[in-house]
């Protein structure tokens, strides 16, 4: 399946992907309205040790530990192989957060799990972090 991959060599640590992700998943059409005066909680996060920067988001593992750990059946793979969250089923137990080796799942303020769903469930239909990365450091491809 097509997945998001990050090329650390080209990541500039500009954090644009975080804001584009927050915008893409806000459900608001205007980017200023979506981001202005709001604390963002994006599905992709740029991590850094001061030298290297790297945008981390869900790896959509072939054998996802989060799905195995989910006690309520809220996490599942869709037909393409992407790991999706059904918020209506999630009980916010945090099991997925604990088992994810990449730290790519989190419990949001709403009390449910959230993570990158490849922009499949929003109006963009393609990962906006990939499209807007200024240096081709985030790619969406078959490997």
């Amino acid at each position, binding site marked *: 399946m097509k997945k998001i991959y990050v090329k650390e*060599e*080209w990541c*500039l*640590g*500009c*954090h*644009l992907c*975080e*804001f*584009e992700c927050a*915008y893409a998943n806000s459900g608001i059409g205007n*980017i*200023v309205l979506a*981001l*202005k*005066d709001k604390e963002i909680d994006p599905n992709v996060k740029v991590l850094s040790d001061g030298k290297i920067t790297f945008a981390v988001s869900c790896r959509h593992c072939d054998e996802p530990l989060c799905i195995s750990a989910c006690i309520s059946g809220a996490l599942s793979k869709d037909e393409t192989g992407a790991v999706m969250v059904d918020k209506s089923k999630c009980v916010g137990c945090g099991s997925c957060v604990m088992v994810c080796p990449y730290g790519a799942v989190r419990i949001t303020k709403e009390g449910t799990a959230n993570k990158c769903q490849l922009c499949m469930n929003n109006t963009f239909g393609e990962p906006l972090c990939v499209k*807007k990365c*200024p*240096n*081709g*450091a985030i790619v969406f491809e078959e490997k």
Partner: protein
Amino acid sequence: MIDYNVAPFEVVRDYDKCVNCRVCERQCSNEVHHYEEGFGKMISDSTKCVDCQRCVCLCPTKALKILPNQNAFRPNANWQQKYLTEIYKQAESGGVLLSSMGNPEPFPVYFDKILINASQVTNPSIDPLREPMETRVFLGAKPQTMQRDREGKILPKLPPRLKLSMPVMFSAMSYGSISYNAHAALARAAEKLGIYYNTGEGGLHKDFYKYSANTIVQVASGRFGVHKDYLEDGAAIEIKIGQGAKPGIGGHLPGAKIVGDVSKTRMIPEGSDAVSPAPHHDIYSIEDLRQLVYSIKEATEYKKPVIVKIAAVHNVAAIASGIARSGADIIAIDGFRGGTGAAPTRIRDNVGIPIELALGSVDQRLREENIRDNVSLVVAGSIRSSADVVKAICLGADAVYIGSASLVAMGCHLCRTCNYGKCNWGIATQRPDLVKRLNPDIAAERLINMLTAWNHEIQEMMGGMGINSIEALRGNRLMLRGVGLNERELAVLGIKHAGEV
């Protein structure tokens, strides 16, 4: 101490749109923007801005624009603000003013005063989408005679040549003046396009030896990075005598930039200044030049064409005539608008002549002396579009070099501060965090796109004229007409005025 200068630009932020994402802050190597906790918003220090437009391009909400500073000195047609500003700088520093990229002053651009012909009724135009259209060019000496063997078969013995898929090459830009990634992009694009890029005087990084079939290696007055493998690796060897942006003077890459691989590639110690002398100290005459041309030919077994690159200066035609007799295969002429990583401002802005006029007079002179076929002519110095390419070829060029245009394709916004070494676009810098901003995968693709587009446009213009090969376009001045040019200018260019039959 009073700072007598005022900021040339003003950073204007639309606070209704700014979402405090701080991308501008992270991306500005000049440290213009920062988030002010006290105000809870982004603040810009316009005095540090060089107008490179990096923040404007990356701002996700398009909240930024950079304008000329409205705070200006009292208008004066003679004492323009730039002269005052430059005096303030020199009064403070006591130093020679430095500038980057090509001459920005409002001298006439002759390409913009030349128009191209097209066919109507009596001589049909050609549709390049349906009929063959040849843009391939060979550079090098064209033999005057044909030799046959005893059975009458033609002996295909030709002098060494360069084969170009289209009449454009990337100009000499050294590794040091531009980044590793910029060089990688140029090399990859040249290979893919079937043209050449040029190492400049910085030597050839070991990683790029694999692009040897598309590499022109340069030998300049400092002889940095020149060794046997280097010469043997190039498809052609260019002796650089002069550069359009700074005719008559040498070069100086500060020791601060001679680090790591740049030092290894140039074959000089880390931290030492790379000073290229003004002249080659072994070339004081055409006879001396001939010795170097033949030394290089001898070293490379006469397998590679030798290019001699000069700046366009007042007596360029006579110099070119000498070079055409020196054994060189190709003459490259760089006009006064040619770019540079750093040059003294006074020289960049006041020395040299326009490439259009230099080309007109050189081509004419070589034809008159019947030595035009001894050499190919490559011109440089602000070729900005496919139309400039076509006009240059009609004026007598075999091909053109593009430097600035290729940098612009990679993202350069001509802020003209390459000499600061803090290029926000990752091109004219050696700072690792900035160099990585230029992803050569993207940059190479952009170069290929630009030249593919130019090639289509060249074919369209040729087709319009009813011409189906570059060979038939070269020196075809009847295809050009001048507008708003005086008799002398038209005579030097060798073209008629628009309206003349």
